[in-house]
């Protein structure tokens, strides 16, 4: 992944719900409220994957969503990051024994950062972003 200069200034975030119970959504929204205010660091929620750098994926990927998730992932311009929010994406969480799921997110997308928790607290999400930035710096150094 070739890192452009604009990457270390501000990461625009696009939220993608693949069948989650909306708990993580509320936590993501809580994260971008003035109390935690990631906008100071340039983290902004954007409306279309075409403007995004980071893809925030929540929920276990249901069968019907799998193909759409791949298409949205491809529509995010390079370089990009994928963050899986909540345990559903990692191990199915409360939907662990469902018949209608296409497995955790890393079966569908290459995931960079996992933020466990059902739902993860805003501090956990921001810590996840910090982990993502560290990973970017490692990548940039390696480049």
């Amino acid at each position, binding site marked *: 992944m070739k890192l452009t200069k604009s990457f270390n200034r501000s990461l625009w975030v696009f939220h993608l719900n693949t069948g989650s119970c909306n708990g993580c959504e509320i936590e993501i929204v809580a994260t971008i409220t003035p109390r935690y205010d990631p906008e100071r660091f340039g983290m902004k929620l954007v409306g279309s994957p075409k403007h995004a750098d980071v893809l925030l994926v929540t929920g*276990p990927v*249901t*069968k*019907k969503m799998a193909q759409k998730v791949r298409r949205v992932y491809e529509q995010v311009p390079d370089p990009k990051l994928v963050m899986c929010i909540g345990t559903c994406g990692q*191990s*199915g969480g409360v*939907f*662990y*024994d*469902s*018949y*209608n*799921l296409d*497995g*955790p997110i890393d*079966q569908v997308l290459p995931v960079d950062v996992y933020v466990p928790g059902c739902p993860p607290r805003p501090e956990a999400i921001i810590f996840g972003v910090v982990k993502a930035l560290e990973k970017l710096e490692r990548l940039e150094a390696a480049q």
Partner: protein
Amino acid sequence: MSETPYRSPQEIIDLYKTEFGAGILDARITERGEGVHRKKGYNIWIRLDRELLKPAIKKLMDIRFPHFAVIAGNDLGDEIELLYILSVFYGTQFGEYMVTFGLRLPKSDLTVPTITDLIPGALLSEREKQEFFGITVTGIPDGRRLFLPDDFPQGVYPWRKDETGIKPEMVRELWAVNRPKDRPAPPVPEKKPVPGDPVAEGKEKKTGGASE
């Protein structure tokens, strides 16, 4: 909307009793306190046959056009129970109450008339019941599948607890997906299951949905 007068839950039940008489198999009011001051909130439960469903809803529409919430489904072993949950609002605070029409369909004859001609919004709920319980809603304008993926096997009704429900091999254990096998033993050994402690003996028997 013409300003129909307020009818207390008891009046509603008397109205239905006078109108349908024996058709009403069971009618009762449950009461519970709402909000900090425990203000009385009422639920009206009426059980009737499938033939009386449409006239009953039509009658409620005459009294006051109800807000259709959802059709709740319940697999009682040899019967499937459908609960048509509607709420009636009078525009005053705490002035609303829920009216629920319960039907019991024997598994041999799982058909119910549609109410989309009265309340178009009920279509989604009816399609869901059709899909997940195998009920055939007669006269449904659009009977396609709604939630299940297209390649889901026919004849399998996920919400049924009998043999047509989900087969164990269809379940995908997400936590087991490429879980590393060669993990070192955890430093603290796991607790032995203490006899008589329900949680320790593993999962409880599967409980039903919104039981009556």
